[in-house]
Every structure is written in structure tokens, then in C-alpha cells.
């Protein structure tokens, strides 16, 4: 199945929004079991405004995100990228339109912005760590929250080895587990933030410009870690970034949001050949795709 998904993702093509709209697959009604691999998110005619309907932040956005896809959202500042991500995370409610989510496990879609069944991890632009907790305690935080959460003591006992393994998976060492965020570098804090997003074994990983404040060298390392995690865990990943190279390198698909008129202006699929990370960064396809992306962002 994963190989089939990879095959779908490898066809490099440019589609405009009108065509995307016609490709919508309508999710079955609630309670109906699905046999196919459904879209994990289906956003229809989504509108978000903060009080003034004449000045929406998101205007009639329609987007379907298949399971297992690495989707990147790019666009100029103020076009609503972060708002779109917050809508998908359930942190921002819609002013109009509809969002459907499907966890895939129960194969029953849920309507509205609750999405309780869909496990999502979120990586913010800042590491957003609690300075009074050690790295391990920060990592354990998601297990302590919510109605079905374990108490602090229970969460402490639960899966210590699994959590240490997670730290190692994002490139931190076991010795870092006892350190507070103030004792970790910016890059290590970002890695810890990434590990925390994975603690609840999410189906979806949402990232809001996570590497914006790190240097180029570290950004490249973190990008490799992120893509490796996406592939290894079969995640659906949605990344918001300003960085076009990052979008081209990491993604299966890139959508472009434009500020005026508001909406999706392009939806591009990325050809991902089986290359090593270093080779991929230099591959001619990367440069071709960057040209397509630039053309979509800055039409002559």
C-alpha cells in the first residue's frame, strides 16, 4: 500500500484550483465504514475571519489531504498559512465552510472542528517548552493532558524506554533527558519539540515554520530528520514554510496560498525519486520544481 502511495506521489504535475475542486471525493456519511484509504482532511469552502466578514483571513479554501502525504503550504506573509494550519489542528474554528477529518483507525469521518479521534502533533515556530520541566518531563506532557490522561505519576512510569527512544529518534541523547530547556541549544529545543509532537503516536504532524529561527546547517539536518520520521512512521505531514527550497526538498505536494484575491493559487505535486538526501538536494528535479513554484508564486 505504501508503495502504491509512493507511485501516486511520484507523478510530477501542476494542477490549478479549478481542477482540484473537480477532483473532490465526497467522504461517506458519518458512521459508514470506508474500505479505501480516505483523505485525512477534507476542507470545503473554508472561510475564517476575525470579526469582519469583509476581510477574511481564509476565503473559500477547498483542500483534500490524503493519508501519508507530505503537504507543504507556502505563500507570502499574511496569506493565511498559519491560520489554515490552526484550522486543521482544531485551534481555530471556521467562520464558514466545512472541515472533515478521518482518523482512519475507526474509518469513520468526524465533522466539525473537534476531531477528537484524529491524533495530531503540532510543532510551533518556537519550541514552546516549559522551562521549569526537564526534557523528559516536557516530552511526557501530552500524556498528562486531556480527559483520559494519566496522572503525573502514572505518566512517569509509562513507557520510559519508549520516550528515551523518541529522544534518540530526533537526534537527542539519553543524557539530555534530565536537562532543562535553558540548558539545551536552540536546535536541541526544536528537536525536543518535534519529539513531543510524536509522543501520542500521531497520525498527523502539523508544523508551523518550525525551522524559521535556526541556521542553514541545522535546518538541513532537521529537514532530513523530519522527512525520515515522516517516512518511517507513515505520518501525514502538513508543513507551513516561507522557504521554497525546504518545500521542494521535503514535500510530496505543495500548495500556494495567495493574499489577493485570497485563496489557493496553485497545487503542485513533487516527483520524489529514490535518492539520498544529499543527492536529492542537488537533483535537477529540485531546480525544475523550484522554477515551477516560483512561477506559481510570482506569475509574470
Amino acid at each position, binding site marked *: 500500500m505504501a508503495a502504491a502511495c509512493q507511485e501516486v506521489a511520484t507523478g510530477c504535475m501542476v494542477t490549478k484550483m479549478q481542477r482540484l475542486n473537480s477532483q473532490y471525493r465526497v467522504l461517506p456519511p458519518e458512521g459508514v465504514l470506508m474500505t479505501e484509504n480516505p483523505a485525512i482532511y477534507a476542507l470545503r469552502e473554508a472561510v475564517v475571519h476575525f470579526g469582519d466578514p469583509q476581510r477574511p483571513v481564509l476565503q473559500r479554501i477547498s483542500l483534500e489531504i490524503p493519508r501519508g502525504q507530505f503537504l507543504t503550504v507556502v505563500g507570502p506573509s499574511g496569506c493565511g498559512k498559519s491560520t489554515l494550519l490552526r484550522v486543521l489542528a482544531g485551534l481555530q474554528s471556521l467562520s464558514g465552510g466545512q472541515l472533515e477529518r478521518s482518523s482512519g483507525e475507526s474509518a469513520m469521518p468526524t465533522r466539525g472542528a473537534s476531531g477528537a479521534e484524529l491524533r495530531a502533533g503540532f510543532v510551533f515556530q518556537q519550541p514552546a517548552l516549559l*522551562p521549569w520541566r526537564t526534557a523528559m518531563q516536557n516530552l511526557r506532557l501530552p500524556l498528562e493532558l486531556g480527559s483520559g490522561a494519566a496522572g503525573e505519576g502514572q505518566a512517569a512510569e509509562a513507557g520510559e524506554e519508549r520516550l528515551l527512544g523518541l529522544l534518540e529518534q530526533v537526534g537527542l541523547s539519553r543524557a539530555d533527558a534530565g536537562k532543562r530547556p535553558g540548558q539545551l541549544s536552540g536546535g536541541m529545543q526544536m528537536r525536543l519539540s518535534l519529539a513531543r509532537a510524536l509522543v501520542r503516536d500521531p497520525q498527523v504532524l502539523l508544523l508551523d515554520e518550525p525551522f524559521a529561527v535556526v541556521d542553514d546547517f541545522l535546518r538541513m539536518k532537521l529537514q532530513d530528520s523530519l522527512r525520515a520520521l515522516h517516512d518511517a512512521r507513515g505520518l501525514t505531514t502538513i508543513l507551513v514554510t516561507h522557504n521554497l527550497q525546504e518545500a521542494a526538498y521535503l514535500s510530496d505536494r505543495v500548495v500556494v496560498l495567495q493574499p489577493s484575491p485570497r485563496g489557493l493559487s496553485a497545487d503542485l505535486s513533487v516527483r520524489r525519486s529514490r535518492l539520498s538526501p544529499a543527492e536529492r538536494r542537488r537533483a535537477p528535479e529540485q531546480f525544475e520544481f523550484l522554477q515551477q513554484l516560483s512561477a506559481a508564486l510570482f506569475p509574470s
Partner: protein
Amino acid sequence: MSERTGQFSAVNRTSVVRSVSDVLVPLLVLALVLGVWQGAVWWWRISPVLLPGPGAVLSASWKIRAVLLESAVRTALAAMTGLSISIVLGTLTAFAFSQSALVRRAFYPYAVLLQTVPIIAIAPIVIVSLGRGFVSVAVVSAILSLFPIITSTTTGLLQVDTTLLDLFRLYRASRWQTLLRLRVPAALPYLISGIRIASGSSIVGAIVGEFFVGDGTPGLGSLIQRKSATLVLSELYATVGVATVLGTVVFGLITVLGETVLRRRFGMSLGGRVSGPQSGD
């Protein structure tokens, strides 16, 4: 020596130099003020009845040292009792304010009243309710020191990083979980800052309380009252000096204790987050 050890030494040296200068600079200012004061008394031959020199004040302090010590201890006890009451009441009030905008809007103006109503107006009410004595003095001290704790702690509980609040919302944290795991620890530097400011007010409150609601037992307030009535200015200045030193010592102790607890137990500091020794990436 490794490069990192070298960096730590440089950092430690810088912090030691800063700590020493934090103590030395105010002491130099004090020496300068005392020198100018003594010089003025000597140059213009000012009568000790009008303005005693620092030397006369020091010798008066030594002369009545036993009374000063007893008074200072009693005033400090009343002030610390008042401060403890205000910490408990102030923190509970701040919790209530942080949980409901309606409660905040309804009761905040009355919290401001604590700061603005003159103690001379409250004194008769305190005397009627509790009588004269230690408890009343502690209550006046609590009234004067409550407001900084309420405002500072409420600010800390409300001004939590919005990204962290989003994180807690994402994991569907309950209001209680958000309060205990996020708002309360994040507000600790604010609470300690509030206690720091309130500590000075609690000393002033205890002294003023001894003026208005005290029962005449030794205390810096009643001592100031007696010395100003007898016009022994050198002893009056000595008492005022001890009151000032007491306020400064309490402020310093709370600062050091608060900073140490925040740094060691919570990885924070009064001025922001601790940037301890960092590992490279």
C-alpha cells in the same frame, strides 16, 4: 582547559564581577551621602537638635541598641505575619481573578481600594474589630502589602505565552490542568516579584500599624512615636535608620531566596528564563 570550561570561567567571572558591583556601588553611594551629611553638619555647625550628624546617630544607635533590637524583632514579626496573610489572600484572589473575567471586572476596583484608602481611615475599624495589639498591627501590614501580590500574580497567571496555551488546547487540557501545569508555574516569577515589592510595604504597614493600632509595646513604630515626642533627634534618626535597614534586609532576603528557588527548582529567574550552560547541536 577545554574551550567550554574556558567559556564557563568567563561567564562565572562576569557574574561574580556583577554581584560584587551590585553590592559595592550602593555602598559607595551610601558612603558619599554620609560624607556629605557629616560635612554639612560640620561646615555649617548645625545644632544636633536640628540635624544630628551620622556619627551622633551611630553613637545613639549603640546607646539604645537593646531597645532597637527588641523593637526591630517585634516589628519584623508583625510585618512577616502580615506578609504571610497577604501572600495567602493575594494568591487566592489572583487565582479567582485569573479564572473569570467577570470576577476580575467585579472585584478589581475593590482591590485597588486597598492601595488608595488611607490607613488612618481603616485604623478605627481594625481597633473596633480586633482591638489594639500585635494582631491588629499584622492586619494593617497585610492590608498595605496585599495589593502588589494580587496585581503581580494576576498578571503572571494571565500573561502566559499564547503558544503554550495553544499547546495545552491542542491536547485538550482541562481548565484545572492548564492552571496547575501551566499558569501557576509560569506565574511564579511574578508572584515572587509581588512578594518582593510587598515586603517593603509590609514593614511600612507594621510601623504605621504600631502608630495607629499598636498597644504601646516596643516596636519601631511606637519607638519613632516616643522619640519624636521627646525630640531626641539622634535616637529618632537611629530608629528610622534601623527601620530602613530592616526593610532592605527583608527585600534582599526575599530576592535571594526567590531567585534561588526559581533557578534551582524551576529553571527560571526573576528577570526571565535561565540560560544555563548549553549543549551544542
